[in-house]
Each structure stands twice: as C-alpha cells, then as structure tokens.
C-alpha cells in the first residue's frame, strides 16, 4: 500500500514554478531519500505534503486521503523534523515535548518521551530551559517532538545538519528503530552519505521536476560508468592488461602502481567470471574488490548541466520492449 502519492503536483510562486508536475509514490514502511540542489523544490514539496502550502495544481494523498491544512486525523500520524526548527524557548525540554504529546494525543507519552530522551542522551537536560540548549541539542529535541507520538510517517528535512558525529550516530539509530517499527521515512538531505545509509530508494529533483528515482544500487549502476573491479597481484605478467581487455564484458583496463582496475559493462557482478578466468591463466590475485560508485559521486555526476541529457537517456532506456 502507498503511504504517499502525489499526482502532477505543481506549485507556482508568481511566474516561477517551484515544483513542476511531480509524481511520487512512496510505499508504506519505505525509507525514501529526496535529493536535489538548493532551490530544486524539495522543501516546497515537503510543505505541500504537510498541507502548509496549497498546491497550485495537482494533489497529495497520504494513506489514500487527500491532504489539506485541516486534515487532523492525517496530521496526527506525521512527525516532522524541519531544517530550521523553532521552539518555545521559555519552556523546559520536558514541558515542550509534553505539550506536543498532548496536542497529538500520544499514547504512553511520558514513557515514550523518557525513552527518546535517553536515546539521544538528553535525559539530564530534560528540565532545562530550551533557551539554554545548543543547536545540536535543539535538533535532537526536534526529533523527540517529532517521534513522541510514534508517527506512521516521518518527514525529515536535513535531519543531521548541526549535529556532531555522536549526534549523527544517535539519530541514525533512532531512524533505524523507527523504520524497524514500520514507519515510513522521507529524508531530504545534502549529506548524501547519510541518505545512502538510511534510505531504500532515492528521488532526485531539479527545477521542480523529478529527474531520477530508483534504488541506490540501480542509480549507481545507471549513472555510474559501469562497474569497476580492482585487483592486486603478487607477480604480474606483462600481457595481463591486454588479456583482460579482450574479455567481452570488459570496457577498459588500467593500472595504477600495483593495482589493476577493470571497468566492466555493469550488466552483472563479474567478480566470479573474472576470478575463474584469472585462475585458469594461473594469475592468482592477492586481493579483489568491487568499487561501488558512492551516491555522492552519482550526485555530482548528475550536475545541473547534464540533467536534461540524462533524463532523455533514461527515458529511452526505460521504454518497454514488446
């Protein structure tokens, strides 16, 4: 069942189209990464998902129900961590969380809040005024507020910005727990390594349009230039590079010091084929590893200049053959 469906979602500010005919389908329990450069329309889209902004055209459905600002029953099931969070600074952290717990009519709120305070290491600060909190502590408090009512859907805009490495680990663990509980996660972030660790699927948006959407593995395969396998040998024979180049699935072979890099067509994992071939030729590798293109590399590859070309290529590639 789909948790979120958007249909031709469009938002205009004057003549500027911030979001342009966006069609998203995010399954229940899925962790979805929402990526894109600054001004791509990510936050505008998230605001429309929350009913904060009204779409110029198109619709948003959460659990099959159309989202409006007065969708009380829907909004009770959503938790939000915004990029720029603001708090009632004259309240203590505990009072603040309890206020939101009451607002959301959270069950077992005190127990749940205590657990969350413990999990992000804020327990000793729970009775301190929020005005005394650092940026990182406020970010964690935002997570507690967003999770206190055990939401079905978590919308996170730059969730780890402002956190130190320990904070990032705590938050990541928190998100994994929520995912295991069955919550759907939408994570919009510029920290791509974090998105890579926490999401199943990503959508890349640019100029308000969704230009790419797939699992991280598939995107890496589609956008990366094939798959690279690296070898290290004890003794190299001079003709090894030429022999490897002659294999039908090998695109390119190169050597840097004692490391040989074989670029394959990426249609499958060729490590087994290559291993067999090397052993048959009595070239015993000391080390063999697959180099995975990181999401960061993929993201950089999909630069603003090449967006249109990639989109056209992918559209052609995805046309089903009868």
């Amino acid at each position, binding site marked *: 069942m789909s948790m979120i469906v958007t249909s031709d979602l469009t938002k205009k500010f004057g003549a500027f189209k911030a979001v342009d005919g966006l069609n998203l389908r995010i399954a229940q329990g899925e962790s979805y990464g929402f990526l894109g450069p600054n001004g791509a329309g990510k936050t505008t889209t998230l*605001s429309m998902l*929350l*009913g*904060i*902004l009204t779409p110029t055209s198109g619709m948003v459905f959460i659990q099959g129900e159309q989202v409006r*600002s*007065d*969708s*009380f*029953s829907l*909004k*009770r099931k*959503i938790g*939000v961590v*915004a990029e*720029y*969070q*603001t*708090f*009632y600074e*004259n309240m203590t952290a505990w009072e603040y969380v309890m*206020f*939101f717990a*009451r*607002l*959301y*009519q959270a069950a077992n709120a005190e127990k749940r809040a205590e657990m969350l305070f413990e999990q992000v290491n804020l327990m000793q600060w729970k009775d301190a005024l929020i005005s005394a909190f650092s940026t990182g502590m406020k970010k964690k408090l935002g997570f507690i*507020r967003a999770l206190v009512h055990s939401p079905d859907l978590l919308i996170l805009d730059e969730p780890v910005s402002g956190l130190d490495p320990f904070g990032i680990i705590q938050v990541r663990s928190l998100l994994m727990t929520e995912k295991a509980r069955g919550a759907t996660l939408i994570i919009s972030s510029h920290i791509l390594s974090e998105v890579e660790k926490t999401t199943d699927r990503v959508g890349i948006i640019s100029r308000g349009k969704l230009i790419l959407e797939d699992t991280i593995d598939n995107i890496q395969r589609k956008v990366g230039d094939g798959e690279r396998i690296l070898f290290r040998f004890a003794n190299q024979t001079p003709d090894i590079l030429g022999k490897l180049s002659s294999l039908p699935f090998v695109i390119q072979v190169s050597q840097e010091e004692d490391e040989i890099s074989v670029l394959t067509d990426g249609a499958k994992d060729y490590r087994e084929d290559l291993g067999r071939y090397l052993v048959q030729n009595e070239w015993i590798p000391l080390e063999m590893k697959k180099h995975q293109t990181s999401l960061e590399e993929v993201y950089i590859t999909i630069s603003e200049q090449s967006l249109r070309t990639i989109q056209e290529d992918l559209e052609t590639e995805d046309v089903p053959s009868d």
Partner: protein
Amino acid sequence: MISQNNKYRLHAIKTIMERVSQTRFWGLGIFVTLAVSLAFSSVLLVNFSRFTETNLITVEKQPLTAPILLSVILISLYLSLTISLNVSREYSNNTIEMLFYGPVDESAYMLGNFFAQLKVFLYSLIGILVWLNLSIWLLNLDFRLDIFLMLGVSILMCGQWVAFGLLVASWGGKRRNTLVYFMLTILLIGGIQAGDFIAATLVQIQSPTATDPLVVARNVLSGINGLISWISPYSQLSSAFEAILENSTSGFLGNLVLMFVEMILMLASSILLLKKKGVRG
C-alpha cells in the same frame, strides 16, 4: 453528531488554550493590570462616595457601573494587546509553523488563543467580584444582582477586544507591524473622538456659519464618530449597562446581539486572513 475531524479540532483548541492561558498566568502582566484597574476603580468609587457625602445626593442608580466599566475595559485592552503580540511573535519566530505540522489548522489556532484570553478574563472577573463585594461592604452600598449581569455581558466585550487583537495580528503578521497597526487603530479612533469633541467645542464658542470649514469638519468628524460609537465595544457595553439599569430587555438583547455578531465577524476574518497569508513567517 461531532465528526472525528472536529473532535480533533476541539482537542487542538483545548491544548492551545491551556498553553496560552498558562503563559498568561506565569507572567506578571495580568496581575499588574488587574491591580491598576482596581486601583483606578477605587479612586472613582471614593470620589463618588465623597460627592454623595458632600452634596447629600445620589445621582447614579448603580454607583458601581463606572468602576466595573473601567476595570473590564482595561483588562480587555491588555488581553487584546498581549494576544496580538503573542500571535505575531509566533509568526515572526516561526513557532506557528511547527504547530501547523501537527493536528492544528487556522481555526483551531485562533480559537485556542481566543478562548485562552477569555479564560484569563473569567479568572480576572473573580478578582473584580471580590473587590466589588469588599467595596459594597466598606462603603455600605446597596448590593444589587445587576452587577452579575454587567460582569457577564463584559465577557462579550472582552471577546470583541480579543478578536480584534487576533485580527490585527493576522493582518500585521510580523511583531513590529502588528504593534504599529494595533496602536495606530487605537490612536486613530481616539483621535477622531477627540477631534469631534474639539470641533464641537469650537463651533459652540465661535458660532460660525453653516458653510464655514469648521462646521463641515465638525459634521464629518461627528458622522465618523457616530459610526465608531456604533461599532465600538466600549459604547456597546455602556449601552448594555444602561439597558440593565433601565430594565430594558430589548435594549439589552439588541446590544448583546450586536456585540456577539461583531465578535464573530472579527474572529472569522482573522481565521480567513491567516488562511490566506499562510503560516510561513
């Protein structure tokens, strides 16, 4: 039958009301305003008492009318200004957006704030009631049940002021704008009333011809002032008090309806305006 969505809305109103009223009680402002208004009311009452003693004549049916009017107006003004600043601060600081991520919409937010101030006003009425009883006992005044009716109708006047504060906040948005709009509106109304009084006095002194600019100005100001008096919560409350003292049920009910309609109109406008502007500060 209340729909599930409206049950959630009512819950949101109640939660916001509790938080805002708690904030009001935590501050000193309401207690200072109550003390100041009762101090002024005491001065009025003492003056009345001295006048009666000196002249051996009572010119008022209910000597507590003016003190009640003064104290409820001062407290309502305070509650109107504070809610206006409270909402605009939420708008400026963006805390309103955090609320709207959850089960809160424009109507729940505005009504929560509205009822929070009314709750504070109701508690203030207890203070006023204690003061009234103390004054009746100390000055040996006649205890009449109409003071309860007066205090009751003053709740509507407070509602009008609070709705006005909310309307100005949703109109102004940011804190500074809201404060400026609030003050300008009050000063404009006060200025027109003062201008009308001055123009009327000058016309009386100078006795100019009908075409004299002074007379024209006086007529214009008088017309605007008439309109202000018609829509002014103070005038409506004052008329309602008079109707109570004269046992005029129709006069009383007429003012009650006018006050209620005006309050609802301002409240609905504030909700619609917030809806139109959005919560992003």
